[in-house]
C-alpha cells in the first residue's frame, strides 16, 4: 500500500476503535433495553471502517442497510452507564487550570493548518492533517490537564455516543450523492433547470444554486441533506461546469443553505426548541429576529460566489 493510503487507513482504524468502545459501553449497560441493537450498530460501523476497504464492496453496502434498519426501528440509543464528568469537578479544575484550558482545542485547529501545509509540501493528502493535529493536541491536553490516560478513549467515546448515529450523516449523504449521480438524478434536475436558465448565464446559475440551497434547507430543515442533492443537480452543471471553482462553490454553497436554516421551523433544535427554552410568548420570535439577516446574507452569498468563483 502506498504511504498516503496507509496513513489514511491508520486513522480510520482509530475511528473504528472508538466505535468499538461505544459498542462495548452499550453491551455492558444492562439497563439499556436496546443494548444489542446499539452494540451491533457501533460494531458494524467499526467493521466498515476497519475491514471495509479489504473486502468486496457490497458487504459494506449490506452493513449500511442493517445500520439503517436499526436506526429506523429506534434500536440505537445512548447507554446510561457513561462516565459523565461532574459539574463540581469541572468547576474546580477550571479555577485551577484557568484560561490554559482553551489551549488544547485552539492548538487542534492551528496545528491542523500548519500540518496541512507541510503535508502538501510532502505531496501527501492534506486530509491527514486533522488526525495528526488531533494526536498532538491530545498530548497537549494531557500535559495541561494532567488527566489520566483512560479519559482519551472514555471522553472520546462519550462524545461519540452523544452525537450518536447522526454523526455518520455527512458520510452517508456523500454516498447518496454518488448513487444519485450513478442513477442520473443530477442530469434530470439539470435538464429541468436548463429550461429556466438562458444558455450560459453564470449569474443566474449562481443565483439559482444559492437560492435552491436555501429553499431545500427550509423544506428539509437540514443544510447537509440539501447540499448533496442541490450541488449534484444544480451546483455542478450550472456553476462549476461553467468554470466556477469547485472549492469556492462548495464552501459558499453550504453556508448559503445555512441562510435557509435560519428561516425554518423545521430546524427545530435551532429555532423552535430554544424559543421554548427562553419562554418566548411568540414561538417564532427567533425566526422573526433572524429573517432580515438571513435574506441579506443570502444575497451576499450570490454576489460573493459570482465574483470569487469565476
Amino acid at each position: 500500500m502506498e504511504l498516503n493510503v496507509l496513513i489514511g487507513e491508520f486513522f480510520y482504524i482509530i475511528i473504528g476503535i472508538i466505535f468499538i468502545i461505544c459498542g462495548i459501553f452499550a453491551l455492558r449497560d444492562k439497563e439499556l433495553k436496546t443494548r444489542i441493537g446499539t452494540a451491533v450498530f457501533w460494531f458494524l460501523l467499526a467493521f466498515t471502517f476497519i475491514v471495509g476497504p479489504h473486502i468486496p464492496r457490497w458487504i459494506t453496502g449490506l452493513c449500511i442497510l442493517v445500520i439503517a434498519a436499526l436506526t429506523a426501528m429506534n434500536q440505537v440509543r445512548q447507554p446510561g452507564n457513561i462516565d459523565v464528568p461532574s459539574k463540581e469537578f469541572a468547576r474546580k479544575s477550571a479555577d485551577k487550570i484557568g484560561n490554559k484550558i482553551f489551549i488544547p482545542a485552539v492548538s487542534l485547529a492551528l496545528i491542523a493548518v500548519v500540518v496541512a501545509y507541510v503535508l502538501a509540501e510532502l505531496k501527501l493528502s492534506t486530509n491527514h492533517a486533522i488526525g495528526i493535529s488531533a494526536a498532538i493536541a491530545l498530548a497537549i491536553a494531557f500535559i495541561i490537564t494532567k488527566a489520566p490516560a483512560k479519559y482519551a478513549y472514555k471522553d472520546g467515546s462519550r462524545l461519540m455516543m452523544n452525537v450518536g448515529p447522526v454523526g455518520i450523516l455527512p458520510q452517508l449523504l456523500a454516498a447518496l450523492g454518488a448513487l444519485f449521480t450513478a442513477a442520473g438524478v443530477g442530469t434530470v434536475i439539470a435538464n429541468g433547470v436548463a429550461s429556466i436558465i438562458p444558455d450560459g448565464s453564470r449569474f443566474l446559475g449562481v443565483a439559482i444554486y444559492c437560492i435552491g440551497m436555501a429553499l431545500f434547507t427550509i423544506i428539509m430543515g437540514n443544510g447537509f441533506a440539501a447540499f448533496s442533492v442541490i450541488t449534484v443537480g444544480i451546483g455542478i452543471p450550472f456553476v462549476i461546469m461553467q468554470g466556477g471553482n469547485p472549492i469556492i462553490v462548495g464552501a459558499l454553497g453550504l453556508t448559503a443553505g445555512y441562510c435557509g436554516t435560519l428561516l425554518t421551523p423545521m430546524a427545530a433544535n435551532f429555532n423552535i426548541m430554544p424559543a421554548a427554552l427562553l419562554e418566548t410568548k411568540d414561538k417564532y420570535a427567533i425566526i422573526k429576529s433572524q429573517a432580515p439577516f438571513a435574506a441579506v446574507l443570502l444575497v451576499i452569498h450570490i454576489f460573493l460566489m459570482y465574483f470569487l468563483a469565476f
Partner: protein
Amino acid sequence: MEVLKLIGVLVVILGFALKRDTIATVVVAGVVTGLVAGMTPMEILEVLGNSFITQRLATLFVLTLPIIGISERYGLKEKAVDFIGGIKGATTGKVLSIYQSIRAAAAAFSVRLGGHPQFVRPLINPMAQAAAVAKYGDLDEKTVDVIKGASAASENYGNFFAQNVFMGASGTLLIVSTMVEQGYTEVTALNVAMWSIPVAVISVLLGIAKNYLLDRKLAATLSEEKES
C-alpha cells in the same frame, strides 16, 4: 420516464420534513433511486458500499472528540462562562455582538462553546435583558420577546457561519467528500476551510450591524426612564 428518477429526492425531502429517522431516510432514498434507474440490488450495494468507504473522510471529525471531551471534563465550558460573564456595562446590542464574535471565533478554532441550553438561556439572554433594564427600566412583553429572539439568533449566527473555518468540521468534510466523489479531487479540507473565512467574517459584521440597529430601536421605542 426520466422524472421518476427524482423519487429519491422526494424521499429525502419528505423524510426530513416529516422528521423520520435521518439515516434510514437517506439509505431508502438511495436504494429507491437505484431501483428506479434500473440498477440491480447488487449494483446498488456495490455503489453504496464503495462510496461509503471512499468517503470515510467525512467522519474524520471523530478524531477530535477525545480532545474536546477531556477539555470539557476539565472545565472548558465553565471557563468560557466566566469569560463571557465578565463583560460589563455594555448595551443589549453590544452584549450580543460580543457574544456572537466570541462564539464565531471559537467555532473557527474548533472550540465548540455555546449552545442554547448552556449559554443563551442561563447567560446571554439574562445579560442582554439586564442591559436594557438598566437603561430603560421595566420592559414590556414584546420587547422582552425581541431581545430573547435576538439572543438566540446571535448564538445561531456565531455557530453556523464560522464552523467551516475549522478543517475538521463536519460541514467542511461534507463539502470535500461530496466534491471528491463527483470527481473534483482538488477540493481539500484546507482550501475549503480557507474559503469559508469570507462568509465567517461577513456574518460577524452583519450581526454587529443588526445589533446596532436593535440598540437604536430600543432607544427609539423605550423612554429613557432614568432621565425622566
